[in-house]
């Protein structure tokens, strides 16, 4: 805990250093600095206490530095601040903060260094520390990697506590009483004689108080919001159609636009003929963009129709254009010349394999689309020498910088208003649609332009989760895994993404092999090698990234090894696990699911364990097989988050991950012809529907270890647990996703 507290103190000082450095917290002093981003667009009469708290005539607004894409982060971050600030839950408003250095995500960048999430050795800590510095130098305000809670658990509470400290100190001055005699109560400071001063009336004076660097935080026993299931701050709006997503932003005199880009993403447009499209009703302007065309009209549907009427002649891409050629490139890269990392090499794998009966298998997974429910969209408005952008983005700093570049502006002339996202899953880390909107805003200077992609464009222009191939070899001795050699080849999403946002990819890309080298299995001879397939079609991060396929590889193969020796696959894993919280989740899921009790004929169950972003998770899937196919009946999940901040939201996130993982396991597959995806909409890119959704029972454990987020955790074990259940019920071992290539589902 000493380390956590230390990080909190340092990061808080970064967040408000200029404020402290300005001697006073005074609203006029602070106005002159850039460090507190709330001051850029601070309203008249508002006081900004720390970058996370604003107090004005409407009450207390908590500024969340991370984007809401469904994971409930606005609610949890609000609870962190509110807990320490001491305000009533129903008096809180939440706003998304502007892109700013103060909001950088340290935990995520630290996560991307090639050390295990459980490795707290000196070297690992030093490497994480260096990356933390990197994050500070390259301010990236990223929402992703299940990193929010880990990044902000202390920072947000310290922000609330520091603001409360200042408010109490201001009250003490006003009342002429020592601060120690004062208490706070739901947005007011209370004196012993019953006098009550509201935070609103104290705010101007509080702004002049120096903030403490490390105010004391409430012990857990005193929490009243944290650890409880809080009503989500966005729930009523989302249930009444009154929540504003990017696609809903409406400005006066707005133009409605769409684009049609080369379906071989990134390749050029040779020529186009827009004669017919220009004559269509409502069409205002058609322009060429790098790699495609854009249509501006007075209605979105009219823009859609006209874009389809443009005749386009597309160039061939520089990368392989068929699924077969792309997979061939992946297989070919599994060679020394393309070796990217060997992050685990315990014991002597070659010797151990030579001495036993070797089980060998190849596993494959396909490219996947993100398929968020809300297609990509953005509103951009170039006016008065500045560019205003409204968009759902997971990396607003990158969106701002790339939009500024195409508009020929400085970053400080671009204001990104981050709005609610209808799903992100990593797709919205890529601001290509924001850049397009900025280009359209330049073309229509003075008028706001709303760019909306058709679903077909969204599917075609995705940066997919790359395909991957694994080759595994293993032996057992004394009914336990004796050696495991795993080799994984895949294109690097970090290289692809960082290249687009203008950052160098540093060293090996651990994401290729994450989930295959870092599992807490005590296998005496264990080697994990990653191969980086030369860059092809652009790819990016997808919910749980490398874990999304490496869990399938490892957990299926461990199951094969257990089956070979006739050992119970759950007990074999339990004996292999060296990490106590991991053992506990596996034991918990065994108890929940009645593991070991006999099942009726035609039924089966499978188990998978995975450690994802430091969170151990175990799943048991129960199925029934029949002539019609496999039906998924139930999924049991046990997960350990260290400290559970909002149990009901954690349950939702884990269930969400399971459904997301099952959708990919059953159906998810993008294939290519002539560089273009062969899937275009939900009819040929199916995802789980209501009638296929199993009952999902979730148990959240708290080992008290470092706090972790679970936006991704539910995903990785779903596919292997299901594939293992199919093996259990039918004897059929499926080593390739999607499973429906090999078996029917009801």
């Amino acid at each position: 805990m000493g380390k956590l507290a230390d990080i909190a103190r340092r990061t808080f000082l970064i967040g408000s250093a200029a404020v402290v450095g300005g001697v006073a917290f005074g609203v006029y002093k602070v106005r002159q600095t850039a460090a507190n981003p709330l001051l850029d667009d601070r309203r008249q009469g508002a006081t900004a206490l720390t970058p996370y708290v604003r107090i004005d005539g409407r009450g207390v607004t908590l500024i969340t530095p991370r984007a809401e894409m469904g994971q409930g982060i606005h609610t949890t971050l609000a609870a962190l601040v509110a807990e320490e600030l001491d305000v009533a839950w129903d008096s809180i408003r939440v706003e998304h903060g502007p892109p700013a250095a103060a909001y950088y995500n340290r935990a995520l960048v630290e996560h991307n260094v090639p050390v295990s999430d459980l490795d707290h050795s000196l070297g690992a800590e030093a490497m994480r520390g260096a990356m933390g510095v990197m994050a500070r130098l390259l301010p990236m305000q990223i929402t992703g990697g299940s990193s929010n809670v880990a990044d902000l658990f202390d920072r947000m509470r310290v922000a609330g506590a520091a603001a409360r400290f200042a408010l109490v100190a201001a009250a003490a001055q006003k009342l002429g009483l020592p601060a120690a005699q004062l208490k706070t109560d739901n947005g007011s400071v209370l004196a012993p004689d019953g006098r009550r001063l509201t935070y609103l009336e104290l705010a101007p004076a509080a702004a002049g108080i120096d903030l403490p660097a490390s105010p004391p935080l409430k012990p857990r026993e005193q929490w009243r919001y944290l650890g409880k299931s809080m009503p989500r701050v966005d729930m009523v709006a989302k249930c009444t159609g009154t929540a504003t997503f990017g696609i809903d932003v409406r400005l006066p005199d707005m133009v409605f636009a769409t684009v049609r880009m080369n379906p071989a993403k990134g390749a050029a447009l040779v020529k186009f003929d827009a004669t017919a499209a220009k004559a269509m009703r409502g069409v205002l302007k058609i322009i060429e963009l790098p790699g495609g065309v854009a249509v501006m009209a007075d209605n979105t549907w009219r823009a859609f129709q006209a874009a389809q009427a443009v005749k386009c002649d597309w160039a061939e891409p520089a990368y392989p254009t068929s699924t077969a050629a792309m997979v061939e490139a992946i297989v070919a890269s599994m060679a020394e010349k393309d070796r990217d990392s060997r992050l685990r090499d315990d014991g002597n794998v070659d010797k151990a394999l030579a001495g036993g009966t070797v089980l060998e298998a190849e596993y494959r997974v396909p490219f996947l689309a993100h398929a968020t429910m809300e297609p990509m969209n953005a509103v951009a408005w170039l006016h008065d020498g500045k560019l205003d952008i409204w968009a759902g983005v997971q990396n607003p700093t990158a969106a701002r910088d790339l939009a500024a570049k195409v508009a020929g502006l400085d970053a400080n002339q671009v204001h990104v208003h981050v709005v609610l996202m209808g799903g992100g899953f990593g797709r919205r880390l890529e601001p290509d649609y924001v850049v397009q909107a900025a280009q359209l805003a330049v073309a229509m200077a003075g008028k706001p332009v709303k760019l909306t992609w058709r679903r077909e464009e969204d599917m075609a222009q995705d940066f997919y989760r790359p395909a991957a191939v694994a080759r595994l070899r293993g032996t057992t001795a004394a009914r336990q895994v004796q050696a495991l050699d795993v080799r994984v080849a895949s294109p690097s999403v970090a290289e692809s993404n960082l290249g687009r946002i203008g950052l160098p990819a540093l060293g090996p890309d651990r994401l290729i092999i994450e989930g295959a080298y870092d599992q807490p299995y005590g296998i005496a001879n264990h080697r994990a090698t990653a191969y980086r397939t030369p860059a092809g079609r652009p790819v990016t991060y997808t919910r749980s990234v490398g874990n999304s396929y490496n869990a399938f590889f490892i957990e299926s193969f461990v199951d094969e090894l257990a089956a070979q020796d006739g050992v119970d696959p759950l007990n074999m894993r339990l004996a292999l696990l060296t990490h106590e919280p991991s053992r506990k989740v596996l034991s918990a899921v065994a108890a929940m699911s009645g593991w070991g009790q006999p099942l009726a004929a035609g039924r089966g169950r499978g188990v998978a364990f995975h450690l994802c972003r430091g969170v151990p998770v175990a799943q048991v899937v129960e199925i029934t097989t029949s002539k019609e196919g496999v039906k998924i009946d139930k999924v049991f999940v046990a997960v350990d988050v260290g400290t559970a901040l909002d149990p009901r939201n954690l349950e939702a996130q884990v269930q969400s991950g399971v459904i997301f993982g099952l959708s990919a396991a059953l159906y998810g597959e993008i294939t290519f012809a002539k560089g273009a995806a062969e899937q275009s909409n939900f009819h040929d890119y199916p995802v789980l529907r209501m009638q296929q959704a199993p009952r999902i029972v979730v148990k959240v454990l708290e080992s008290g270890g470092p706090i972790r987020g679970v936006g991704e955790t539910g995903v990785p074990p779903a596919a292997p647990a299901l594939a293992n259940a199919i093996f259990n019920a039918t004897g059929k071992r499926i080593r390739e996703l999607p499973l429906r290539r090999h078996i029917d589902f009801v």
Partner: protein
Amino acid sequence: MKLTVNGKSHEIDVEPEMPLLWVLRDELNLPGTKFGCGMAQCGACTVHMDGTAVRSCVMPVDSVSGAVTTVEGLGAPAALHAVQAAWVERQVAQCGYCQSGQIMSAAALLQKNPAPTDADIDEAMSGNLCRCGAYPRIRAAIHDAAKRIRAA
């Protein structure tokens, strides 16, 4: 062309084949009804036509033959419909983008069948996708809403 939406009559001048969805969103500025797929695959655009759930993204506006109700007309934050109240109680929404359509499908189901079984729910809701996988809570909330409606 005349169109009645949420009890209000509108005179609109658009192509007869323009889908109702885009009339609602862009012409009448009612953004609660969402665009998801444009081909009746995801249900995000679900509205009621004379109480029946229809996919507005594939319904040409000139084929609209009855009064249209959108999520904005079903209830409001200060006056929730029973289905919306159940959704809030169960904390169903995650990203929330599909929920307008889910709620409209559920409300239409309950209007015809105030005590649906799980199989009835599967059938009525099979056209509404949720990428966040809120299905378990959607199902529970529909049962809750049915109870609320029966008790009212």
